[in-house]
C-alpha cells in the first residue's frame, strides 16, 4: 500500500510545490516509486517544478471521465521512478470539487501502486485543502517563519480540526454541538475549536473520548521553509508544542529548510533545484527531511 502524504500550508508562496517536487525527486532517487499529485486545483504548477512544460493529461481528465482510470492520467517525467498526475490542464471551473469527488479521487489514489504518493494541496483553508488532510489523516504542513504564515497555518490546522469533528459527528449533531458550544463561549467556532471537544466531553463523555482518540490519530508533520539566518531555528518545534498542548493534536516537527536565492533561479530555469545545487544548505536539509519521512513510514509499516 502506498504512503500518502498531503502537503499543504495556509499561505501562498511558502514553497509547498517546491518541497513536494524536490522531496519527490529525492525519494525517487533513493529507488522509491514515487507519484506526485498536483491537487492544487486552482493554481497548479507542480509540473513546472519537475521540469515538465506541457503535460498532456491531468487530474480533471479523470474527474470528467475522459480517462477511465486515474492510472491513465499518470505521466512520466525525466527522472526515473518519478511520476506525476498534473493539474495543468484542469478546467478553469474545477477549483472547488464536491465532497464526493474528493472522496473518489482519494479512493482512486489510495489504490495506485506506488511506494510514496505526495499530494501538493492548494493554499488556504478551502474545503479542497482541508478535506484532503482530514480524509487521509496525515499530512505535512508547510510554513515560513513569518507571523502571516504562522497565523495562516494555525487557522488551517484549526479548520482541519473543526472539519474532522464535523466529519465524525455528522452534520446535524455537529450543529447542535456548535450551538451549545457557542452559547457557552462565543469564540468556539471562530477562534477556539478546542472548546467544541470540551463541551462534547462535558455533555457526552463517551463520545468525547472517541472524538479525542480520532483527533489523536492524526499524523501531522510540520516543515518550516525559507528559514533565514536571523530566524529562530526552534520556531517549528515551538509551534508543534502549542498545537499539542492546546489542540491535543499530535504534530511532529520534521525540520527546517533554509532560504536560498537559488530556488528562484532553478524555478525560472524550470529545472529541479536539488539537481542544480547539490551541496547547498537547502539541499542537504531536504535530504535530511526525506530521511525523516522514510524513517517514519518504515516505523508505521512495522507497526501495521
Amino acid at each position: 500500500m502506498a504512503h500518502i502524504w498531503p502537503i499543504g500550508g495556509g499561505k501562498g508562496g511558502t514553497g509547498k510545490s517546491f518541497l513536494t517536487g524536490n522531496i519527490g525527486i529525492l525519494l525517487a532517487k533513493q529507488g522509491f516509486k514515487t507519484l506526485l499529485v498536483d491537487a492544487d486545483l486552482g493554481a497548479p504548477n507542480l509540473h513546472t517544478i519537475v521540469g515538465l512544460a506541457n503535460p498532456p493529461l491531468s487530474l480533471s481528465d479523470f474527474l470528467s471521465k475522459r480517462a477511465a482510470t486515474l492510472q491513465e492520467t499518470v505521466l512520466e517525467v525525466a527522472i526515473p521512478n518519478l511520476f506525476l498526475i498534473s493539474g495543468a490542464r484542469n478546467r478553469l471551473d474545477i477549483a472547488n470539487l464536491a465532497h464526493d469527488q474528493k472522496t473518489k479521487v482519494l479512493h482512486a489514489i489510495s489504490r495506485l501502486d506506488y511506494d510514496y504518493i505526495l499530494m501538493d494541496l492548494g493554499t488556504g483553508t478551502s474545503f479542497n485543502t482541508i478535506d484532503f488532510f482530514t480524509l487521509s489523516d496525515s499530512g505535512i504542513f508547510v510554513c515560513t517563519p513569518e507571523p502571516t504564515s504562522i497565523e495562516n497555518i494555525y487557522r488551517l490546522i484549526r479548520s482541519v480540526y473543526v472539519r474532522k469533528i464535523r466529519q465524525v459527528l455528522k452534520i446535524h449533531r455537529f450543529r447542535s454541538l456548535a450551538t451549545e458550544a457557542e452559547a457557552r463561549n462565543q469564540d468556539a467556532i471562530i477562534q477556539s475549536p478546542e472548546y467544541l471537544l470540551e463541551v462534547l466531553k462535558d455533555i457526552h463523555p463517551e463520545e468525547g473520548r472517541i472524538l479525542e482518540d480520532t483527533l489523536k490519530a492524526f499524523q501531522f508533520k510540520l516543515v518550516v521553509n525559507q528559514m533565514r539566518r536571523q530566524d529562530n531555528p526552534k520556531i517549528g518545534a515551538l509551534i508543534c508544542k502549542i498545537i499539542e498542548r492546546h489542540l491535543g493534536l499530535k504534530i511532529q516537527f520534521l525540520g527546517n529548510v533554509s532560504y536560498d536565492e537559488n530556488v528562484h533561479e532553478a524555478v525560472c530555469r524550470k529545472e529541479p533545484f536539488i539537481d542544480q545545487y547539490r551541496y547547498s544548505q537547502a539541499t542537504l536539509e531536504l535530504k535530511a527531511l526525506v530521511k525523516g519521512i522514510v524513517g517514519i513510514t518504515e516505523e508505521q509499516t512495522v507497526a501495521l
Partner: protein
Amino acid sequence: MKKVLDLNFYELLEVAFDASPFAIRQAYKEMVQLYHGDSLASYSFFSSEEREEILAKLDEAYSTLIDEKKRPRYDQLLIEQGIFEEGMQYQQDRKTLSLISNPKGFRAHAVLRKKNELTAMASSNAVIQEILAQDVLSGNDLKKIRDELGVSLEMIAEMVKVRVVFLRAIEEDRFEKTPSRIFLKSFLRAYAQCIGLDADLVASRYLKRIPD
C-alpha cells in the same frame, strides 16, 4: 487533553515533580518565550485575554515552585490529592549533596547529632575531668580528650571546615603552622565546640601558654 489552565504547576512548566530550582527557572524562561505577547511561535493563536491568563498562571507556578517555603506546601497539596507520591518531591537539603561529599562527611553528621552525648560523656569521664581541671591546656591534653571521646581529627575537620593540618598543629603545639593568633583562637573554639566542650574555657586555657 487537559486545558492548560487546569494543569498543575509541574505539568504547566513541563518539569518533573523533583525538578531542581535551576530546571524550574529554565523551564519557566522557555514557557514565557512561548507565550509572551511578541512570541512568533504562538502568534495569533491566543486572544490577548487568554494570553494574559496563561502568563499569569505561569508566573504563579514559577513563584510558587521557586520559593523554598511555598513549594513544600504546594507539594503536600498535590500529594494529598494523590497526584504524586510522598517521597518523590524535591528535597531542599539534597543540594548539600555534591560530588565532593565523601563518606567522612556522613560520619561528621553523626558527630553533630551526638554533640550533647559527647558533653555528657566528657562530664562523666574521669580522665577528661582531670584534664579540664588543669589551669592550662596543652595540645596533647586536647588530643587525650578527643581520644577518650573516640572522635577522629578528620571528623572534626569535616564538621568545622578547618583543615586537618591546622587541627593537628594545635594538638602538636606547633603554633607557627596556624595563620595567626586570631585564627588559632577561632580554630580552638570550633574544635572544642565540636566535641562538646566549653569553647571559651578551652581557648583561654590553651592560649595562656602563648605570648601575644
